């Protein structure tokens, strides 16, 4: 099947020149993340991704995870690949050294995770969910829970799941009904059914720690009465050995549009008398913990959009370079490879330029996350955290929406062959489709963005970001040449569009919440496109400086040309989106429901 080759050059460029890995490595606790070590880590991760994970992507999709007798069998090769994955120590990359992790920055983890997701998204979900569970336990687990679970989960010997959704409660967690009955000895018996549980069961690890949202008997109604419980697949004895099988079973798996190798389980807790669990953190504080973990999860899903776009691009590019079809539009003696055709070129550039924009944007958010967590200066931590909070819904929403568009383009470049599963392009389209849905749909992200992140604080954080964007625009103005003039013009227009739309949202959110909310997703896309364009402009400026300094690497002129393309084809859509935000609210609500 198609090869995956990690885009190390662009990753390294973004890490060094845009996200500032050297500054991150100066933060207390991140001293080991020096440029040379990070380079070695990325290179080996790239080898692992293309050598072990990528070859299983297509076969895993074809074979799918299989359910029988309340347990799940993974597609061929996954178990061995997982064993190699944890043996190589990748699972603990960013986890706490106290429990065996390597404690590396989020910025490094972002680049490495992008590779896992590009190579094999369905596989990558297993360690991702484990990471979520690790984070919850690190945050609020008891010392006993930490000691018993964290070393095994950080090594990857045990995996983790997040059990939120119930059949009657999708995005609305207030409707959760699962019950937790205290046993008087500090343990609880959990009863209830959970759906959409990623890797709820599988055969790659000896134990799984399910984190389950449930209500205690006297809990208040709604979201304020949800508690978080740790329910292992196998009970853990005091000496750390595995005990009895717990009453937590996968009773079926979903048949899905994509990510076939990732088992999406219906989990039944307590059908046979009660699943034993222990409380994580405070009673009734479950939702609060979910919110704390949400940023990480949403960021990670955003990366999936980038990662699938990258894989789809590599596949489409290889095909376009090879496929001979049709004569050149300007005339040619014989048929030419389709990469020669202007429209194919346009599609490939749409893919390349938006991938680079997404990567630059998301990695800089990861770097801000590191500063928010580790910067010695409290003000700087606060500033960085505000930036992260503002941008998380954009990372999640814009990267996944764009990732879908790129997977679509990947199929289109292939023409009829793209519609055929054997080519592999179709899988990326199917796998991408979930990313705009789970961990909060694009609509939910957009509502979070305009409401909590902008209107609530009167757009203060965004204004700061806009000021930084204006500084970049001023730098662009100092450069000569048509490329930079075009980039500057498009960025300036984009910044103006964001400013106008945000002012409209702040001014009208309270008075016309329905009308403003119609513009939520267009605004999220606008934010993504302009934030991505801002980072591309920064990249072009760095490239220009390198060229001026005598660096002959063709990567740099290509970066400037790619930014120019992005300016003309992507950033140029910003005013249209702002128009939809400012003027489009009424139109969506005008019709009576029966006229739809």
């Amino acid at each position, binding site marked *: 099947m198609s090869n995956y080759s990690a885009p190390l050059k662009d990753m390294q460029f973004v890490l060094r020149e845009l996200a500032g890995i050297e500054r991150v490595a100066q933060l207390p606790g991140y001293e080991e993340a020096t440029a040379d070590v990070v380079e070695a*880590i990325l290179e080996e991760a790239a080898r692992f991704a293309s050598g072990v994970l990528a070859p299983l992507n297509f076969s895993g999709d074809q074979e799918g995870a299989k359910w029988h007798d309340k347990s799940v069998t993974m597609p061929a090769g996954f178990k061995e690949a997982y064993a190699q994955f944890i*043996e190589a*120590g990748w699972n603990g990359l960013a986890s706490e050294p106290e429990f065996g992790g390597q404690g590396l920055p989020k910025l490094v983890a972002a680049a490495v995770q992008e590779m896992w997701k590009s190579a094999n998204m369905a596989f990558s979900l297993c360690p991702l969910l484990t990471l979520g569970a690790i984070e919850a336990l690190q945050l609020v687990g008891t010392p006993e829970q930490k000691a018993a679970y964290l070393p095994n989960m950080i090594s990857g010997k045990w995996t983790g799941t997040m059990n939120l959704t119930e059949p009657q409660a999708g995005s609305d967690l207030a409707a959760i009904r699962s019950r937790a009955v205290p046993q008087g000895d500090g343990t609880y018996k959990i009863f209830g059914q959970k759906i959409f549980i990623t890797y709820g069961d599988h055969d790659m690890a000896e134990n799984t720690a399910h984190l389950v949202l449930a209500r205690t008997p006297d809990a208040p109604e709604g979201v304020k009465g949800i508690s978080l419980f740790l329910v292992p697949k196998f009970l853990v004895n005091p000496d750390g050995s595995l005990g009895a099988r717990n009453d937590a079973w996968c009773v079926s798996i979903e048949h899905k549009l994509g990510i076939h190798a990732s088992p999406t389980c219906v989990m039944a807790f307590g059908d046979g008398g009660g699943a034993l669990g222990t409380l994580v953190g405070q009673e009734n504080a479950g939702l609060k913990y979910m919110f704390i973990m949400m940023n990480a999860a949403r960021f990670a899903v955003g990366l999936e959009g980038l990662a699938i776009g990258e894989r789809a691009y590599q596949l489409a590019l290889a095909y376009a370079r090879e496929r001979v079809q049709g004569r050149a539009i300007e005339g040619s003696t014989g048929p030419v490879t389709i990469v020669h055709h202007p429209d194919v070129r346009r599609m490939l550039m749409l893919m390349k330029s938006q991938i680079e924009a997404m990567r630059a944007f998301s990695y800089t958010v990861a770097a801000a996350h590191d500063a928010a967590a580790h910067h010695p200066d409290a003000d700087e931590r606060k500033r960085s955290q505000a930036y992260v909070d503002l941008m998380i819904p954009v990372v999640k929403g814009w990267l996944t929406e764009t990732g879908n568009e790129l997977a679509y383009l990947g199929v289109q470049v292939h023409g009829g062959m793209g519609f055929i599963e054997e080519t592999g392009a179709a899988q990326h389209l199917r796998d991408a489709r979930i990313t705009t849905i789970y961990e909060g749909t694009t609509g939910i992200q957009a509502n979070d963005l305009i409401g909590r992140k902008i209107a609530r604080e009167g757009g203060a954080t965004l204004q700061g970001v806009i000021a930084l964007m204006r500084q970049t625009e001023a730098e662009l103005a100092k450069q000569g040449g048509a490329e930079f003039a075009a980039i500057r013009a498009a960025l300036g227009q984009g910044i103006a569009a964001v400013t106008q739309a945000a002012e409209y949202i702040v001014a009208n959110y309270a008075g016309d919440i329905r009308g403003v909310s119609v513009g939520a997703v267009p605004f999220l896309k606008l934010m993504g496109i302009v934030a991505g364009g801002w980072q591309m402009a920064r990249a072009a400026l760095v490239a220009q400086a390198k060229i001026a300094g005598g660096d002959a690497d063709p990567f740099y002129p290509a970066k400037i040309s790619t930014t120019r393309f992005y300016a003309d084809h992507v950033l140029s859509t910003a005013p249209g989106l702002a128009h939809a935000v400012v003027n489009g609210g009424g139109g969506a609500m005008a019709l009576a429901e029966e006229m739809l």
Partner: protein
Amino acid sequence: MADLKILVPVKRVVDFNVKVRVKADGSGVDLANVKMSMNPFDEIAIEEAVRLREAGVASEVIAVSCGLVACQETLRTAMAIGADRAILVESDADLQPLAVAKLIQAVAAKEQPQIVIFGKQAIDDDANQTGQMFAALMGWPQATFASKVVVANGMATVTREIDGGAETLEMKLPAVITTDLRLNEPRYATLPNIMKAKKKQLDTYKPADLGVDVTPRLTTLKVSDPPKRSAGVMVADVKELVAKLKNEAKVI
């Protein structure tokens, strides 16, 4: 065996995935901005050495590389796989196999290894010489193109690939082994070992420190593209096909 050192020379070469391009002026291949990696046969050599240490046969594995400062990266990779320490013989000269064999000879004089494991050839110059040359300079036995290595009681028993099959040689240590593809499948370096590699010892010498004259013996006059694949031809019948395959393509 309490004290058995293995020396593994490793070379930094163009990554095997890179399709090299010949420079337009014929002066060589274009190496600017090209990804460099450890020569794949040398990775197999490091892996074999590390396995011998893990099996308790060897006490220490030392990686050595001759070339630019950037070879340090290659040595770090070797240490991430499991080499205990590394030596760089730093030189920006064009180091040809005989010169490298002499440099390794000088390093061996300092380190006194019992086994030196080379990759059978480097994928850049495709020379396939250095291991044999080093063995000659040392007066040691050589087991080239190894597909299986057993070390016990001061002896190495090596199965090596020969044309049309395999043979097994037995030799007293010290000895030279060069690796073929089938010897092993190199492991992926683990994340903790990648991070530890940075802290392992790396010593640097210059050829002059070692008293070795590295003057090249061969001059490359030009480098050109290989003959282009000729356009396909249709043959009239089976006879013509067989004749072409025999006399023109020389594949049967």
